[in-house]
């Protein structure tokens, strides 16, 4: 995106609120309009003033340019299109906005109180309240031998894609709008932009060029896309808006911070009986993915291990903070930090090996959870055992000598979810007469390699080489329906659609070949672009000959559509929430070895073994790459990444102060691929895009406890916290809890 330019292109800049909570009294754009090189200045008055919701019927509460009120530092107020970036930057500084400052609230627990300033002028700042319960936790706790109650909290971290958000919008005189955007979901973005602008969705086309990383940060429309479109509509020229790194830190999405109050009841042999959680999510100033992510976190209560009684309450609370969005893991990293830290605390108290306790409570393929999740394939136990062996768990554990090893597991979707009420994918495969194959898919490659995986699936099905497949993705006009790159879904869902299309194309090819070879289609096979009779392989034809017959002699192209809708999920009971949320489940276990300096509190992570069940590794190198990259993000989330806010203002919006791991910061990372062969995945495969991030932080927290006996329950895990905890331990407190 950053490399693209169009003739007569203008540059856009957005004027944002410097205040966390204020009324807009007046906006004076006169000076900006007069400045040389400025072609358009827009405010809310230049928009249809429609409130936007990423996911109707979720409450629509955000306008691309706010009219009456700003609710976080960075809220969009006006925008400018000018001949170059510098002119645009100067022009927005010439826009004068009169604000009336309002009291602001930054802590979600404070924001929940009745006396807190109301961010959306409602009676309460609780944007959503979610409740989900199965079994009877009261009974479960009654039967428990021991009950544990702990409070955990997670931090604000952000995607830090190497390419910042950017878009080019070009509104043609014909009325059609083309938007090039760093998106993960071109087939939904065009509808979102249309909704925000109040125009018909067929008037918008989105093209996804090569994108420099996504990780969930490009899951839905950024206000930048709509504003850029408005500027182009105003000027009739292409307009480009690209975030600076500072704008990326301060205005793009981040992971929702959560406070998790966990209560777990167990038998003294370690059997889990009941689990109750209250989660308070900092929704930030606007709805985006807060409710969905909070709900996703709640799913884990009975998905992680066999738990017969659960109760989940989620409060999604508006604050005057920058609002979050989807980020690799989607609620799972937050709740897993809590659950997996507590598992170790429970095991320690009961005198049981935490690995054995996890194995004891784990399930296998064929299990159905109390909330309705159907586990079709499960490699968790294998992940735990193989990971423990490679990490040398038995040998390294329990010395309490400054070095320690800790583990944590995860469960995640391996095939997306019916977030929109459906989870489908469509693909087209055409066998061209030169034996190349065109695959047209709605899937999106943002660097994770989905184009390659889809090509491999089609190549395997058709008996051609991967190099013969041309994968066409990223154009909402041409590419068919696909929800896009999120939820670790594309290998499973888009892959199944591609496989179905390829199988139909194969069937058509074999039908022609069967006439030519005078055999039944069922007796034929295709390998290395040769169609042959299985019993007598000498009776063969090249694929080129068959296609020539089909195209040139009969005028029949070989082309097919594949549609996959994950039928596997049962419908959700609207009253209880009983449902199978995911079509396939991905599992994994991380083992982290650390060294803690008792004098300084410094934590050095030495080794991480990351074992992941991905069904079938269609491309082992790519799968390892996904896991290794995710572990790096998990390491950052756990230890060095933390957005620092004061009065709603990000005060560390640079790579200097917000530290993502560099090559020299990384420990040894050893991925292990476990293949449980899912019955519904393409060639048995499930997703692995998100899972690699989920258990890293709790594995490290558990390793720190093993090393020096201190428990940190609040991310990130810093040397200061360790040192303070060690001092408290020394001062004779029974248990140092941070």
């Amino acid at each position, binding site marked *: 995106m950053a*490399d693209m330019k169009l003739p007569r292109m203008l540059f856009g800049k957005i004027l944002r609120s410097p205040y966390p909570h204020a009324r807009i009294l007046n906006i004076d754009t006169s000076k900006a309009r007069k400045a040389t090189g400025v072609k358009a200045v827009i405010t809310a008055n230049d928009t249809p003033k429609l409130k936007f919701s990423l996911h109707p019927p979720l409450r629509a509460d955000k306008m691309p340019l706010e009219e009456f009120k700003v609710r976080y530092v960075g809220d969009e107020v006006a925008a400018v299109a000018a001949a170059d970036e510098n002119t645009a930057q100067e022009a927005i500084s010439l826009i004068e906005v009169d604000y009336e400052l309002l009291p602001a609230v930054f802590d979600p627990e404070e924001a929940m109180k009745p006396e807190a300033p109301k961010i959306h002028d409602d009676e309460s700042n609780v944007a959503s309240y979610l409740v989900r319960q199965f079994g009877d936790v009261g009974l479960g706790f009654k039967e428990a031998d021991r009950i544990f109650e702990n409070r955990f909290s997670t931090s604000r971290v952000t995607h830090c*894609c*190497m390419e910042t958000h950017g878009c080019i919008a070009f509104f043609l005189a014909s009325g059609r709008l083309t938007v090039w955007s760093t998106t993960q979901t071109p087939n939904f973005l065009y509808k979102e932009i249309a909704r925000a602008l109040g125009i018909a969705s067929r008037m918008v086309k989105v093209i996804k060029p090569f994108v420099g990383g996504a990780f969930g940060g490009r899951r839905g429309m950024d206000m930048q896309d709509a504003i850029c479109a408005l500027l182009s509509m105003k000027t009739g020229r292409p307009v480009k808006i690209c975030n*600076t790194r500072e704008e990326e830190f301060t205005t793009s999405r981040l992971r929702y911070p959560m406070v998790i109050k966990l209560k777990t009841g167990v038998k003294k042999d370690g059997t889990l009986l009941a689990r109750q959680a209250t989660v308070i999510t900092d929704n930030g100033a606007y709805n985006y993915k807060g409710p969905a992510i909070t709900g996703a976190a709640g799913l884990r209560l009975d998905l992680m291990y066999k738990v017969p009684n659960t109760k989940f309450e989620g409060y999604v609370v508006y604050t005057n903070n920058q609002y979050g969005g989807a980020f690799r893991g989607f609620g799972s990293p937050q709740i897993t930090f809590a659950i997996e830290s507590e598992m170790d605390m429970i095991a320690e108290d009961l005198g049981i090996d935490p690995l054995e306790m996890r194995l004891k409570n784990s399930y296998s393929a064929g299990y159905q959870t109390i909330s309705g999740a159907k586990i079709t394939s499960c490699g968790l136990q294998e992940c735990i055992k193989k990971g423990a062996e490679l990490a040398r768990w038995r040998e390294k554990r329990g010395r309490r000598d400054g070095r320690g090893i800790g583990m944590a597991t995860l469960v995640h979707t391996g095939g997306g979810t019916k977030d929109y009420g459906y989870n489908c994918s469509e693909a087209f495969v055409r066998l061209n007469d030169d034996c190349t194959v065109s695959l047209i898919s709605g899937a999106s490659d943002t660097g994770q390699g989905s184009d390659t995986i889809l090509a491999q699936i089609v190549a395997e099905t058709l008996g051609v080489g991967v190099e013969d497949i041309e994968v066409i993705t990223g154009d909402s006009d041409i590419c068919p329906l696909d929800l896009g790159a999120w939820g670790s879904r594309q290998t499973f869902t888009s892959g199944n659609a591609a496989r179905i299309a390829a199988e139909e194309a194969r069937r058509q090819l074999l039908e022609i070949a069967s006439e030519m070879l005078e055999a039944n289609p069922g007796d034929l096979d295709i390998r290395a672009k040769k169609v042959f009779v299985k019993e007598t392989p000498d009776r063969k034809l090249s694929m080129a000959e068959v296609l020539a017959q089909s195209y040139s002699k009969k005028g029949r192209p070989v082309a097919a559509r594949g549609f996959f809708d994950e039928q596997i999920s049962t419908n959700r009971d609207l009253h209880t929430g009983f449902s199978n949320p995911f079509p396939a489940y991905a599992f994994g276990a991380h083992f982290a070895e650390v060294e803690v300096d008792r004098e300084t509190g410094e934590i050095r992570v030495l080794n991480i073994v990351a074992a992941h069940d991905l069904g079938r590794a269609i491309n082992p190198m790519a799968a390892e790459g996904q896991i*290794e990259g995710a572990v790096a993000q998990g390491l950052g989330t756990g230890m060095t990444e933390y957005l620092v806010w004061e009065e709603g203002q990000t005060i560390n919006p640079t790579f200097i102060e917000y530290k993502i791991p560099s090559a020299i910061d990384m420990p040894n990372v050893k991925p292990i691929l476990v293949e449980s062969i899912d019955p519904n995945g393409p060639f048995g495969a499930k997703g692995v895009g998100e899972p690699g991030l989920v258990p890293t932080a709790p594995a490290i927290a558990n390793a720190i406890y093993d090393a020096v006996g201190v428990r940190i329950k609040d991310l990130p895990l810093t040397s200061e916290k360790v040192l303070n905890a060690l001092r408290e331990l020394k001062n004779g407190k029974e248990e140092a809890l941070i």
Partner: protein
Amino acid sequence: MREKIELKVNGDLYQVEVDPRKTLLSVLREDLELTGAKMSCGYGVCGSCTVLVDGKAVCSCLVLATQAKGKEIVTIEGLSDGDGLHPLQESFIDHGAIQCGYCTPGMILSAKALLDENPSPDEYEIRSAIAGNLCRCTGYVKIVEAIKAASAKMVRSWQISPSSAAGRRKSTQD
């Protein structure tokens, strides 16, 4: 007040008229349309803008274009030799060291600068050399593997033995 300067990039001479405040990165990307060097932070921490200036890996976002006059500048576009890819480029592909690709040009050039000076680096030396090139996708594992493999291949093809390369390394440190 624009200044006329001559830049030598990838062996070619370019005459450009630039605002003296413009960085080398901006001139490469906008005036010369060599978009391989990327803008990601703009203040010299992420390394996406890395190019070679007289053989040294530098952050081109921290270099004024006018400072680059008379220097030999190499960008990623100048790395391959005709149709053939540089061994580092091939190795990155073979080892899965590229995911989104945004950090890749800078990463490869930092690796090239390392191998030109130190043909057989150990893992620590490799990681140190690329410590200024941030990658959010790969976790660096396959990038390090790719650089190790490329160095082995390049040493073989130069017919320099690792021990004499070590001797060469020692002398450059003295």
